[in-house]
């Protein structure tokens, strides 16, 4: 069965520190990859996505992620975090299967990021 693993459940950083959140998935075929963010009290919002092309994708608010196919990874990075980045971050994978009409997202467990001012 396909699965997504986020290695860090809770990350605590000080402002201006660099961030890297790990995400690995298990599926041997073609995938679409996403990072979603959920700020406190708000709904899931898309940070960035990878469909094809340049494996380094840039998203909103200075976030970027790199798809490394050989490692089945899609790690999220930000060079300098801000207090306003405090949120929960979810990696999600859409395995592209011929019989799957639905664009199913398989989510990781989420990483809670706390940024200290």
């Amino acid at each position: 069965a396909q699965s997504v693993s986020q290695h860090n459940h809770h990350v605590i950083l000080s402002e201006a520190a660099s961030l890297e959140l790990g995400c690995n998935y298990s599926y041997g075929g073609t995938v679409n990859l996403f990072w979603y963010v959920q700020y406190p009290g708000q709904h899931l919002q898309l940070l960035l996505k990878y469909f094809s092309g340049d494996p380094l994708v840039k998203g909103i608010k200075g976030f970027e992620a790199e798809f490394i196919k050989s490692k089945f990874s899609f790690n999220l990075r930000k060079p300098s975090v801000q207090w306003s980045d405090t949120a929960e971050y979810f990696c999600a994978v859409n395995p592209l299967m011929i019989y799957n009409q639905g664009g199913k997202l398989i989510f990781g467990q989420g990483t809670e990021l706390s940024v200290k001012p």
Partner: protein
Amino acid sequence: DAMVIQNPRYQVTQFGKPVTLSCSQTLNHNVMYWYQQKSSQAPKLLFHYYDKDFNNEADTPDNFQSRRPNTSFCFLDIRSPGLGDAAMYLCATSRASITAGGPYNEQFFGPGTRLTVL
């Protein structure tokens, strides 16, 4: 603004009492999804509609049903809620597009309905 709306935001029901959660969208997307998210867990897809075609996940209990009367609305019916069904229920939409690296583009989520079962 175009968006995904879920009502109610909080729902309390009694054990075994049927409950319906509502989702509407102004995005005119042709795919609508229902996810269940339990505390400290990842959202898990229950089922989705691709236009009028219903697609159930293999491990979704029969207790969960869905209706999509038109493009804009989708309902989640829980026929006999158990204590284990207490969770956040998320509705999402997407536009199926074969040009977007897809055939599917990203999913847009509503704020969720938190269901409590007493």
